[in-house]
């Protein structure tokens, strides 16, 4: 086993660190909370030029054909300053297209995203569906020109700004994925602000979709893989969130004085900080494992690694961000202080692509779980 970064991975990480320091400190995300888009198309283009958006995508669509773990390393850095560009939403939608689309569809929909010209969103969650992508009420009816999609999707991450929506729908006996133009007549997009200062959309569909916008592959398997990629991505970003709040909190403990001494000299606070460190390291371990196993052909192995990482993220991330607020004291609950922004992002990451309870159920339902 080897967990050292390669030379390329080190350069990639350094580029991401440089970007967060020079161009996207937390103050940028803070300002963009009030922007109707919530992120910058210019920065998005720059990310495309840097190659970040194409890291795990093949060269045929302009990508770098790399491994997912390379993107995970970038996401961990971007999580440290809460960079708001919609890499994760575009990634999961793109993964679904990659898994289920043919070469022409992949080229048509992935190339502009990979280049940073536009973003994508995956519309899968429904009102009574919880986190199971198999719970689909949206239906696809066949028409002479293709399909008519009828249904409602909820909390489509970045759905308010994406150039294309990848929509899951019941298509006869199977679940299929359709690429829907959000500007088409019959698509109603209602932007929703989310607690982490970003945007999602509620999407009402009663829309005609051309036949060539249906992805031919198995929609359910593509969706499940895409959501696992999303979960692994959330874990990587979450580790960055934890590292940032741990650093912020220990810095505060080293400088804040009460009773005439630095509060970091109090053992009760030292031990709390030590536990935050422990949780951060454990979450990094499972996050890296998930990133490396995400394309494992063995589905049980992939599921075990991804669900473990998401469960550990929830346990660790909740502890680390909550204690970060506690250790900051009163200042920690002001909107003015950054620690609350991280805390709220962690809540969103924990919910995204299946929360801990959902992942526990999946983990325990794997074949082999009971074997002793």
């Amino acid at each position, binding site marked *: *086993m*080897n*967990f*050292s*970064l*390669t030379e390329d*991975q080190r350069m990639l990480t350094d580029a991401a660190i440089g970007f967060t320091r020079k161009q996207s400190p937390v103050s940028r995300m803070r300002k963009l909370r009030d922007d109707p888009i919530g992120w910058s198309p210019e920065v998005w283009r720059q990310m495309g030029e840097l190659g970040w958006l194409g890291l795990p995508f093949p060269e045929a669509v302009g990508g770098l054909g790399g491994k997912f*773990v390379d993107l995970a390393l970038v996401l961990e850095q971007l999580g440290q300053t809460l960079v708001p560009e919609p890499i994760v939403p575009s990634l999961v939608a793109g993964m679904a297209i990659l898994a289920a689309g043919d070469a022409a569809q992949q080229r048509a929909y992935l190339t502009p995203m990979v280049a940073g010209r536009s973003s994508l969103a995956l519309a899968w969650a429904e009102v009574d569906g919880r986190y199971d992508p198999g719970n689909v009420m949206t239906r696809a009816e066949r028409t002479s020109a293709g399909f008519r999609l009828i249904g409602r999707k909820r909390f489509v991450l970045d759905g308010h700004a994406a150039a294309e929506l990848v929509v899951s729908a019941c298509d006869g006996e199977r679940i299929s994925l359709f690429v829907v133009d959000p500007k088409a007549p019959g698509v109603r997009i209602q932007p929703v602000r989310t607690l982490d200062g970003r945007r999602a959309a509620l999407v009402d569909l009663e829309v005609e979709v051309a036949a060539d916008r249906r992805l031919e592959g198995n929609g359910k398997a593509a969706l499940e893989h895409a959501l696992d990629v999303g979960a692994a991505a959330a874990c990587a970003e979450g580790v960055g969130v934890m590292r940032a709040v741990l650093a912020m909190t*220990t810095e505060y*403990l*080293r400088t804040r004085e009460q009773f005439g001494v630095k509060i*970091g*000299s109090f*053992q009760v*606070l*030292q*031990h709390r*900080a*030590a*536990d935050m*460190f*422990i949780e951060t*390291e*454990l*979450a*990094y*371990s*499972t996050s*890296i*494992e998930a990133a*490396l*196993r995400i394309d494992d052909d063995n589905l049980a192995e992939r599921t*075990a690694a991804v*669900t*473990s990482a998401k*469960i*550990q993220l929830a*346990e660790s991330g909740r502890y680390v961000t909550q204690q970060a607020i506690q250790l900051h004291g009163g200042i920690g609950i002001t909107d003015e202080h950054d620690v609350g922004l991280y805390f709220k992002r962690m809540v969103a990451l924990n919910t995204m692509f299946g929360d801990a*309870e959902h992942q*526990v*159920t999946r*983990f*325990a339902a794997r074949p082999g*779980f*009971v*074997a*002793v």
Partner: protein
Amino acid sequence: MDLALSPKHTAFRDEVRAFIADALPAHLRPKAAIDAHFEHHEVMEWHRILYKKGWAAPNWPVEHGGAGLDVTSRFILHDELELASTPPLSPFGLMMVGPAIIQFGTPDQQRRFLPKILAGEEVWCQGYSEPNAGSDLASLKTSAEDAGSHFVVNGQKTWTTYAQHANWVFCLVRTNPRAKKQSGISFLLIDLKTPGVTVKPFLTIGGTKAFSETWFDNVKVPKQNVVGEVDAGWTVAKALLGHERTQTAAVGVIGRTLRKCKRIAARTRAGDHLLIDDPVFRGKLARLEVRYRSLQMTNWRSLAVAQLGHAPGPESSILKIRGSELVQQAYELAMELMGHDALAWFPEPGVVADLEESVASQFCYFRATTIYAGSNEIQRNIIAKHILGLG
């Protein structure tokens, strides 16, 4: 980055598994099957079997009779032995005083002591803690007075694990009462048969005699029994702390206890269903297994760094804390799964429905894991000070 075990290490793991399956004596297997407590003579029997195989001291260099295994192979051997619930060899000779003598001892000391440790002919225990020197070890008072050709030792040591079975004890003793704390301490080897030594085992809350108290009353110890320089024993003791961090995580013990929990859940009924089919217990098992996996992966990270010959990274400092906590959590879940049966204390055969009769004893005894080998509070102090820069 790569999660795969190298072909060499995969082959070694297979070799270890095959060896255990073949070499564990039939009369020890029923105990291994339920992770039961082994008696001293059973442990020594297994020690001799591993010695014959050349695996008693995997971390010793070959010139001293060790297996000379690399750090990953050592972990694999340790992990497989734990997972198979084989009798755990006493670490005090093989893992502590042996390496100390190899690193700091004279050639005479090495010739005198190492072969007998290796062969299991002499058993060792550790004399560090005292009634008033626990976490604050450097405040120890047991004295060794210079009487020309020998030292005269007086004082009391406690937590001398299995001293009742041991032939020798390695002690930290104060040789210079005027020097400050750490600087006046020596690392001294004492034959427990020497007149003036009294060993008294006591019961733990687990109902077993794991620890002893040991008194020294004008005990004469030859000067050549000092390891390293006189007054420099703290350096010797500190060097031992850094050894084999990845084994302190006890991942094998946690793994086999998790397996025990599933075994119990798979045959324990609650009315019309088995506990393994109960969503609440299934969730608890799953969450414990996830914590086990995150520790395991952290342990692999630590090993990967050591395998490259680098100094341990920050991740290695959390292994003892989380490993010891998870041993306790795993036994707590085993107790919960057993229900009423968990209350039975060393039951006669047949009293408890299944064969897990030692769960209650070990559940109680393993409250020690977060205390021994540097309490978890001390471990957190170390993280806070040395990694997080708090103080």
